[in-house]
């Protein structure tokens, strides 16, 4: 029975990793840009929520709702004024600029908030659990997983049912031709990064409620997100969710065997998938 429990906890943890990864997957899918500062942006989001909670006394969920438009504008500006200049055939500029951004952001957070680990205030809701037969499930992990599924459904709806989604797909396929049809790729890219940072805010909320965070944990979140995206196959959002689940289950099983093996087990699961299916489980046809 303990194994069933471990696997279910792993699946729920996978929801958190899918939330980390969804923004990364979205940005890569539309503009082939890998943002190495993604993990640090998640941590920054968590600090922003914490700031709203402590300064204005808002409950965490409301604080996240307030942080979302702020993060959207930040992502929009980041893409419009910085990252758009790096896009092109050469892969070096976007990689090196986002890597520079990652280091700068990490140290800016360190300077502002110190290296002490922080946590969003917990309430009755965050510690509650429900009993499903012999297994006890935390309400927070369930909520995290449900949010991940909702985010992915929402993104799919956005992509395939709205005008903006059509513009996203057109720009992703061929930015030059799309611009002939009156689409401004620079603005589309800026909007996409803005949306990615809204998802980052949701991820940051659950990161902060679930465990302690400090300015240095960004790169590890980037790595989990990246592993989930690669396992799922580039550009497939449901694949990203499955990728997150695989990493989550591998980590909880690893931790059940030996606590020191938790992170290692996740990485090894990733390498095994890479060995068997180099393009991930649900690869897009053209990439």
């Amino acid at each position, binding site marked *: 029975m303990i194994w069933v429990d471990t696997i279910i906890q792993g699946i729920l943890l996978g929801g958190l990793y899918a939330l980390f990864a969804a923004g990364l997957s979205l940005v890569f899918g539309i503009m082939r*840009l*890998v943002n*190495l500062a993604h993990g640090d942006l998640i941590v920054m989001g968590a600090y922003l929520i914490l700031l709203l909670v402590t300064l204005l006394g808002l409950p965490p969920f409301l604080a996240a709702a307030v942080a979302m438009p702020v993060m959207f504008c930040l992502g929009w500006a980041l893409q419009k004024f*910085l990252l758009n*200049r*790096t896009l092109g055939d050469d*892969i*070096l*500029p*976007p*990689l*090196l*600029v986002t*890597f*520079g*951004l*990652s*280091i*700068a*952001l*990490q*140290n*800016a957070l*360190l*300077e502002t908030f110190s290296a002490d680990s922080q946590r969003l205030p917990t309430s009755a809701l965050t510690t509650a659990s429900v009993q499903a037969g012999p297994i006890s499930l935390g309400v927070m992990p369930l909520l995290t997983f449900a949010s991940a599924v909702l985010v992915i459904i929402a993104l799919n709806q956005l992509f395939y049912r709205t005008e903006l989604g059509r513009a996203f797909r057109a720009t992703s396929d061929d930015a030059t031709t799309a611009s002939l049809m009156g689409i401004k790729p620079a603005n589309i890219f800026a909007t996409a990064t803005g949306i990615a940072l809204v998802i980052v805010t949701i991820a940051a909320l659950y990161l902060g409620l679930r465990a302690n965070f400090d300015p240095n944990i960004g*790169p590890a979140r*980037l*790595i989990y997100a*990246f*592993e989930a995206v*690669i396992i799922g196959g580039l550009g497939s959002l449901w694949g990203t969710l499955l990728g997150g689940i695989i990493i989550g289950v591998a980590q909880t099983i690893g931790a059940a065997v030996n606590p*020191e093996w938790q*992170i*290692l087990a996740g*990485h*090894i699961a*990733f*390498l095994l998938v*890479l*060995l068997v299916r*180099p393009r991930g489980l649900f690869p897009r046809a053209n990439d």
Partner: protein
Amino acid sequence: MAYSVTTQTPASRIASIAGLILIIALVALPFFAGRGPIQDMFFILTMLVLAQFWNLLAGYGGLVSIGQQAFVGMGAYALFGVVILLGLDPVPSILLAGVAALIIAVPTAFFAFRLNGAYFAIGTWVIAEVVRLLVAQWKTLGGGTGTSLPRSATKDMWFVEIIEETLGVRSAAARDILAYWLALVLALATIGGIYWLLRTRRGLALAAVRDNMEAAKSVGVDAARMKWMVFLTSAFGTGIAGGLIYMQKARISPDAAFSVTDWTAYVIFIVVIGGIGTIEGPIVGVLVFFALQSLLADFGSWYLMTLGVLAIAIMLIAPRGLWGLFSERTGIQLFPIRRTLRGGKLSETKE
């Protein structure tokens, strides 16, 4: 007059004479400099070696790796392993550090080459994390807390006694001088070796793959083989540098030896600031880096923030770095690799 094909330019000839004088001065440095400057120079030279190898990977091979710390750490741990467990002398063990890095580079490349471009970068990082976590399980070398080189091994190290006697210094200072001279040899061999490589047929093939992989393939360049060659060479050199750095430190822990900031972030900043894709770039970069570090050492995280912002600014404004700016304005290249035709009727120069 016969035709001749040469890569030399007047500037490169002056540079080679100046370089020779500089090398003699650097070799003689321990005879008149104190222990502080020797340790600073050791740091500069080893960072220069790491930067040259990362530049070979990213600047010439187009392979942006964020996992170089895997080879630094593996080299360092291999050195500690053979010294502590087999009782070998640390100096020859440095070569084994390179071999160990080479051995883990083969599976790393096998996995990482399945990923393209930006994903290759994070893939190498994941593998470096795996190596760090595995090494932290190695209990005989101290596990997660690390270990030190035994005093007996560092005291009787090759050459230390001779240096003590000839220079009249204590054992600790003699070890620093030995490490400095080894770093100097390594740096010169690295720069010389990379310069030689770039001037051979393989170097031409490498530049062709970097500029346009499809075009290079169409004229018969084996692009996949070039990637493997560059990756393995760079891993070997990085492993040797890692072994040497930790021989001098004489104390190791997984978090320090596999630090992404110390062994990859700094190195990337050095190359980007100096100028990616040139041999001169990392040399300029490491000097700027050292100057910034000395200036901002007291400001903690502001220092890394400045480096990050500086790297972003350089990438946007002058993607070829400081040396690229200088070279564009003046046309000066200290390590020219472009072949020019001299002599005969075509020549306008009086040679």
